[in-house]
């Protein structure tokens, strides 16, 4: 807020309509983790995860619902979510979205 008022002093007279604070789950490359859990441990044969969306999960809701349901139903990664497997942190094929856009959401 100090930054906004520094740029636009007239904002000092504006009223705050809405604020929000909370915790978001952010991965080291700022991209989500979507895929199977059984790559390293067969005990997780039928477990699939979809997490780590940070501040970007809302806009992806219908898309990931469609792709993740397809992934789980067929037992293989949908092409759109294949790059987001957990293994990318061991293979090094990261999707580094840090600083990709000025908008953080």
């Amino acid at each position, binding site marked *: 807020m100090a930054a906004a008022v520094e*740029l636009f002093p007239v904002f000092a007279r504006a009223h705050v309509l809405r604020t929000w604070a909370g915790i978001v789950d952010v991965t080291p490359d700022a991209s989500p983790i979507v895929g199977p859990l059984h790559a390293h441990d067969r005990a997780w044969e039928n477990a699939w995860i979809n997490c780590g969306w940070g*501040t970007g999960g809302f806009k992806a809701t219908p898309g990931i619902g469609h792709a993740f*349901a397809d992934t789980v139903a067929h037992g293989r990664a949908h092409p759109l979510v294949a790059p987001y497997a957990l293994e990318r942190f061991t293979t090094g094929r990261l999707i580094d979205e840090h600083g990709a856009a000025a908008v953080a959401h």
Partner: protein
Amino acid sequence: MVVVGGGGHGLATAYHLAADHGITDVAVLEKGWLAGGNMARNTTIIRSNYLWDESAGIYEHALKLWETLEERLGTQVMFDQRGVLNLAHSLATSARPSAGSTPTSSTASTRSGSPPPRSASSRRCSTCPTGPPPGARGDVPAARRDREARLRRLGLRPRRPRPRRRPGLRLRGAGLRHRRRPGHLDPHQPAATSRRAPWCCARRVTRRCSPPSWACGSRCRATRSRRWSPSCSSRCWTPS
């Protein structure tokens, strides 16, 4: 099939499992409100302009589905395509990651090659892209305690520095209590966070005081500042 978490993603997954794949024995577990997080409270922006093709792919797929979602669900989701203009924002620079922690902010950590290590004994510096050189003393409170102890041994009473004023807004339209100061590099940050660390490469050592300790008690003439300055230290680091 059990979906853990009844937010937007869990519900969308359950919907598509039933609608597209005929899997109808789906249990959605949720401890709170259904879709009570970003769907209900705090997020509004839908876009697909991302840096990498993998990101643009999934978000563009989602955007196309958003465009037909009301039709498909037969209900109002208040989807409306328009532009967005961000007038001002600041990222949480205090959350600048150290080598061993997870980065939470976007710009600072990726553009500078190695973020400065952050520990209790080193102060963060807003201008210096690298960390302190080996052997640098950055622990200002410890140095201040050391100086106060020496003053007490001499029978003098150390003067505590006045607390810095924090930026803030008055309640009713009075404006900003935030002023730029000499050495105040980033106007968006309060003075306490934009102070250069003692090991900062931006401050060249121009003269040395005696005794050669930067907490020696003399004012720094080189910077015309009332703050204690590292300019009298033999440990100061000049850029290579």
